[in-house]
């Protein structure tokens, strides 16, 4: 083998060594590079995925480009798999060395590229995920722009009454975080605003944010509520899941951050021309101004964290539940608001049809989840929130009958199983395994009859309930598609953003410098959301902390005089690294990951896949099949 290798043209020295990856083995290479003035090194040994980095380092330290190194994998892909055919294995090994040499001859001097990266992060979404990530980054000394679509941060968690399995009050733990985020000197909060466009790449994102007019000066507003009192418009209150009313000028909830009112332009009687203007008349601090317009804010950021949240499943499409038809069929979020002391009923449990206290409540699990027709995935939170709400109902009214119809109970988290067990055993909530067939309403009493099959006992069940609560699942946020188009990050089959790798890079996206967290990436509960948010913050920190960012030189490049600007390559790039400028494709090196799909497709061969060039590959093919 050694003699064969040495006999090949351009080979100035060939040596054998038992463990060439060991320190003495590396020394051997160093010595030859220095003494024999080598400009290419080939190691025929194990798979490059083990020691390619080791040997590259040797070259680099000897002043050669680390990419002038090539390995012939004669172990994993030869001797270990061709043990019975030593003669043929030897021939193959020779071919592998020829191929490595053919490639090495064509290798080009490449150097990793360094780009500068600053200290600014953009976070899209001001729920618990966005807030947690923002605080971590801000505390680490980075500048954060926290963009929230609604008038206040807080997100879905602000609507929750208590959180499982600890039963702590949701707003009690959330509000301090909101306030902290609102006050932090490193966090610039931009509410009532949306990201409209993002261009560029890690270390150089150019962001356009559209801020909608609030018509109320956040700094001047004292929250006195005088404006709201005089406002003649009443519309369903989103915060209370539509169970109460709010005015056109309002504050979403008392703990809102920023703690300022907002004029809901869509529902106001009219600003142009001014139709009512009562609120302005009563505003003592003169915080209200009708002359506000949407403003565009340009930001330059280095990293982006997506925390755009989720949308509760809307069961109106499922006929069997008659949600929206029968008044006493509620969603779990509506029940959450009813349970809340600051909610529409001030925590008194009543049913919507007659505002009477229910004697029995039935929960229907997996609404919109684990269903071929809707969403196949498990929404992960419904089992536990149903158990939690059931327990809350029992706490308030121990005599109430509470049933939960389930497929199976998934109590996988820390303390979940214990919580579920206790809810059954100590609180007497009845869990019935079975999917419901239909819900009927008595038109007079508005009482409901739930028909189901108990699949454990194998017999039909029919029971009366004053309220049926649908445990609705988690679905992708309304803005997911829009954000995908802006950030060019992929969405999975379930409609949520896709992580770069489900296990090893769970908060990265395929675009460098853009991270995911919370329910924008899939259903999860508060603790998981927060840990993921902090993981995303850590990912962004790791990028920004050193002030520089290394790009592998595998990126593709365009030989411009050859490019006709056909645009074939553009849609192929999964990272949107290619753009057409003046009928010439331009590749953004920082976005390119070096897969080479564009080079293979370029009909003019104008695109070169560095380190995997046509020349290199073709010479490998030629040498493989020649003797």
């Amino acid at each position, binding site marked *: 083998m050694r003699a064969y290798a040495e006999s090949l043209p351009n080979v100035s020295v060939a040596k054998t060594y038992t463990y060439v990856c060991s320190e003495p083995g590396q020394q051997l290479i160093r010595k030859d590079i220095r003494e024999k003035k080598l400009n290419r090194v080939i190691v025929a040994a194990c*798979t*490059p*995925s083990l020691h390619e980095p080791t040997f590259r380092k040797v070259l680099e330290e000897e002043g050669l480009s680390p990419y002038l190194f090539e390995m012939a*994998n004669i*172990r*994993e*892909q*030869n001797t*270990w*798999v*061709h*043990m*019975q*055919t030593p003669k*043929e*294995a030897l*021939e*193959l090994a020779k*071919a*592998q060395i020829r*191929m490595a040499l053919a*490639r090495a001859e064509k290798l080009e001097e490449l150097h990793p590229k360094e780009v500068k990266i600053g200290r600014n992060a953009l976070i899209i979404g001001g729920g618990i995920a966005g807030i947690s990530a923002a605080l971590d980054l801000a505390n680490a000394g980075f500048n954060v722009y926290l963009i929230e679509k609604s008038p206040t941060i807080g997100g879905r968690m602000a609507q929750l009454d208590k959180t499982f399995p600890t039963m702590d009050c949701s707003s009690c733990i959330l509000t301090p975080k909101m306030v902290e985020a609102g006050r932090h000197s490193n966090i610039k909060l931009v509410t009532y605003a949306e990201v409209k466009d993002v261009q560029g790449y890690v270390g150089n994102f150019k962001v356009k944010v559209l801020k909608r007019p609030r018509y109320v000066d956040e700094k001047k507003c004292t929250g006195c509520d005088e404006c709201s009192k005089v406002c003649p418009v009443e519309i369903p209150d989103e915060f209370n899941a539509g169970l109460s009313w709010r005015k056109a000028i309002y504050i979403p909830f008392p703990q809102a951050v920023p703690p300022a009112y907002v004029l809901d332009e869509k529902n106001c009687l009219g600003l142009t021309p001014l139709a009512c203007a009562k609120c302005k008349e009563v505003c003592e601090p003169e915080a209200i101004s009708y002359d506000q317009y949407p403003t565009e804010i340009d930001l330059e950021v280095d990293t982006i964290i997506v925390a755009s949240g989720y949308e509760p499943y809307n069961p109106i499409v499922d006929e069997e539940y008659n949600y929206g038809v029968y008044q006493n069929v509620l969603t779990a979020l509506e029940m959450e608001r009813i349970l809340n002391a600051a909610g529409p009923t001030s925590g008194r449990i009543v049913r919507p049809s007659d505002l009477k206290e229910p004697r029995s409540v039935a929960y229907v699990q997996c609404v919109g989840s684990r269903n071929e027709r809707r969403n196949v995935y498990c929404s992960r939170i419904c089992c536990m929130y149903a158990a939690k709400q059931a327990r809350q109902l029992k706490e308030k009214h121990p005599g109430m009958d509470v049933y939960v119809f389930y497929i199976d109970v998934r109590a996988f988290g820390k303390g979940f199983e214990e919580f579920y067990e206790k809810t059954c055993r100590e609180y007497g909530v009845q869990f019935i395994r079975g999917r419901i067939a239909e819900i009927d309403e008595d038109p007079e009493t508005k009482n409901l009859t739930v028909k189901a099959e108990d699949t454990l006992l194998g017999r039909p069940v029919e029971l009366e309930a004053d309220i049926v609560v649908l445990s609705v699942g988690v679905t992708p946020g309304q803005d997911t598609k829009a954000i995908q188009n802006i950030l060019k990050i*992929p969405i999975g089959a379930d409609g949520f953003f896709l992580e770069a790798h489900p296990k090893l890079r769970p908060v990265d996206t*395929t675009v460098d410098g853009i991270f995911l967290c919370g329910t924008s990436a899939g259903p999860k509960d508060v603790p998981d959301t927060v840990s993921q948010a902090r993981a995303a913050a850590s990912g962004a920190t790791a990028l920004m902390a050193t002030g520089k960012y290394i790009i592998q030189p*595998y990126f593709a490049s365009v030989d411009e005089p050859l490019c006709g600007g056909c645009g074939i390559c553009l849609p*192929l790039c*999964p*990272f949107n690294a290619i753009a057409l400028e003046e009928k010439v494709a331009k590749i953004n090196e920082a976005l390119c*990951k*070096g*897969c*080479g*799909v564009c*080079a*293979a*497709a370029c009909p003019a061969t104008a695109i070169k*896949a560095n380190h*995997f060039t*046509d020349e290199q*590959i*073709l010479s*490998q*093919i*030629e040498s*493989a*099949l*020649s*003797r």
Partner: protein
Amino acid sequence: MPEKFEPYIFGFLCNWCGYAGADLAGTSRIQYPPNLRAIRLMCSGRVDPAFILTALKRGADGVLVVGCHPGDCHYINGNLRTERRVALLKKMLSNLGLDDRRVRLEWISASEGEKFAVVVREFVEEMRALGPNPLEGNMNET
């Protein structure tokens, strides 16, 4: 009678799945015939039909392209691009009078060492049955 015909197979393996699967076959000591000469590319999406044609022209009796399973591509969908290229190329090869079984696309993940060995074994047998590549420059011709 000439000696038993041993087909040459040229392989294009993607770094993340095919190549890793081949390595796993190695570490698991799963044996397969020594007729494959393979190179590593970052993604099966780098496989240019011209490479496959060149390998055939230079005498490869079969060409094996290995990528990640759909949905697992390290680069999202490079494998799907190549899937379509290979399908169209196969039609072109048939038009040109070559048996399109000479080009084979397989999805083999990094954990499928066994599958890698099986695929190579099967492909070599198939090509053995098919006989030498009839193109000029076939190295198996005397």
